[in-house]
């Protein structure tokens, strides 16, 4: 007889002891569930390599942003002060402040760069979160548990990359098409890119990566020496945003 069965029979019979408190029942249920299929979290370290030279953004392509907005029910508040953004573009000098000089290659100087949460190895946002709503998974994804977010915005203050957005208003009326597979957020909650962890769980890649026709974005496991990301980083020189801060971003830009 499984522990579940015993538990249910116990409840059904109405016989329960004081010590069997709520926590115990949750634990009992947890045993009945399985880790997701595929590799275990332990030997995975998700990262993304972006080749700005391939990006068609200066030609007006917004495929990656549109794809992200669509699958994550990201609201469009119109008012830039209220903007919620998971993935967005920024000129070089703003994306890599201090790294530009008057001789920066023309190719980069005016070229917009695709930015998103860096999923830092040493994430300051995680350290400041008072409820552990933001936490770092073993596979390197800096994850958000929106159920726990109390809207204190410490994480927004801590993030040096401006990767986080706050819902100043109820987002629902501002979402063009509700996707029932993904929750919305509520007023007073912080949100950001999660590397499409819900798609990774289904064995799919991040929505932005799939949407990019130019293949400017490559996603993969850094712990796997044969992965495409590892090969790219080996072959070419890359930079990361604000390396001097010691946050160890997992988004690499090829130069």
């Amino acid at each position, binding site marked *: 007889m499984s522990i579940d069965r015993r538990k249910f029979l116990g409840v059904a019979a*109405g016989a*329960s002891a*004081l010590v*069997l*408190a*709520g926590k115990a029942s949750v634990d009992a249920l947890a045993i009945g569930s399985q880790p997701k299929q595929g590799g275990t979290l332990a030997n995975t370290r998700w990262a993304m390599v972006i080749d700005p030279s391939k990006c068609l953004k200066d030609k007006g392509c917004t495929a990656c942003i549109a794809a992200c907005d669509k699958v994550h029910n990201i609201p469009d508040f119109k008012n830039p002060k209220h903007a919620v953004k998971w993935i967005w573009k920024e000129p070089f000098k703003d994306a890599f402040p201090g790294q530009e000089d008057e001789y920066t290659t023309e190719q980069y100087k005016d070229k917009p760069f695709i930015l998103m949460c860096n999923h830092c190895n040493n994430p300051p946002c995680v350290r400041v979160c008072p409820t552990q709503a933001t936490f770092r998974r073993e596979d390197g994804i800096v994850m958000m548990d929106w159920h726990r977010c109390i809207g204190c915005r410490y994480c927004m203050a801590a993030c040096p990359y401006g990767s986080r957005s706050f819902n100043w208003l109820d987002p629902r009326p501002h979402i063009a098409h509700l996707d029932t597979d993904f929750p919305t957020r509520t007023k007073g909650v912080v949100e950001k890119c999660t590397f499409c962890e819900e798609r990774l769980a289904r064995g799919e890649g991040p929505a932005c990566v799939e949407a990019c026709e130019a293949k400017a974005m490559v996603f993969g496991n850094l712990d796997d020496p044969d992965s495409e990301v590892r090969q790219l980083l080996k072959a070419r020189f890359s930079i990361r945003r604000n390396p001097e801060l010691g946050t160890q971003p997992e988004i690499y830009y090829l130069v």
Partner: protein
Amino acid sequence: MNALLSLIVVLVLGALAYVGGSVEGLRTLFGVIIPYAAILTFLVGVAYRVVRWALSPVPFRITTTCGQQKSLPWMKAGYLESPYTTLGVTLRMALEVLLFRSLFRNTKAELRSGPQLVYGENKYLWLAALAFHWSFLIIFLRHLRFFMQPVPAFVNLLSDADGFFQIGAPVLYLTDVFILAALGYLLWRRFRDPQVRYISLFTDYFALFLLIGLAGSGVLMRYFFRPDIVAVKELALGLVTFTPAVPVQVGGLFFVHLFLLSLLIAYFPFSKLMHFAGVFLSPTRNLANNNRAKRHVNPWDYPVKVHTYAEWEEEFHDKIKAAGLPMEKE
């Protein structure tokens, strides 16, 4: 001793209900008959007690003034602490009933060697009392969701506010935490403070244990051993709409809760718990301090034997005359 005895009494009564809830023949007794009897006792008993108080008049205006009287127009009067008008009295009573103004004043005196008598702030009793009473009121109002169908908006609003922090599911009510903490403090205080322990009667502990049992069984049911809530509401609505029935899905802990509640409300009119009504009638608080401006009439006033001036002058006639004081009769 008093404490132990009352704890035992409450535990036995609780156990009785637990058993009664699971014995088929007793379910109607504990689920219908006792609750009805308790409510009836409460309504009739409270009315009786209040009427008894009302029948005793207030012969004198004996306001306890806690602030400056209204006298000269340029002198600032304490319109709340020494109210002069009905409005002032109403506000004073509101402060008293809603915020426990008098208890807020509480201090503690300590005699040190010297002798030196020192006074300190002492607001814990006030805090615990306020936390308990407000929590009790909110919990009471929240429970209306079981007695009213459709559930009124204010009840849902109150539940939402009470569960504001959305901890767990079903969400943790703050008042549940507050009421247990406050009752715990009040009990602990009766044990710890030698003076308060000395004055505490069996009934003081009994009321506390009854309330702790009531709140405790409620908390256990909400967070740990949930009964079928729909069945509970069916039972409650049955009582309110006078179509009583005990659904089969309820039992055990719920009967403990219901029985302790029945005991509490039946005990009300026989106990100090009547202070909830009595506080409104307290003549030292609910009268204006306008004695000299407005005559207060004593309904049972009667003439008394006095020593009149005429008798006095007659008795001391010669002495008054010798002193050369004016007289009525020379």
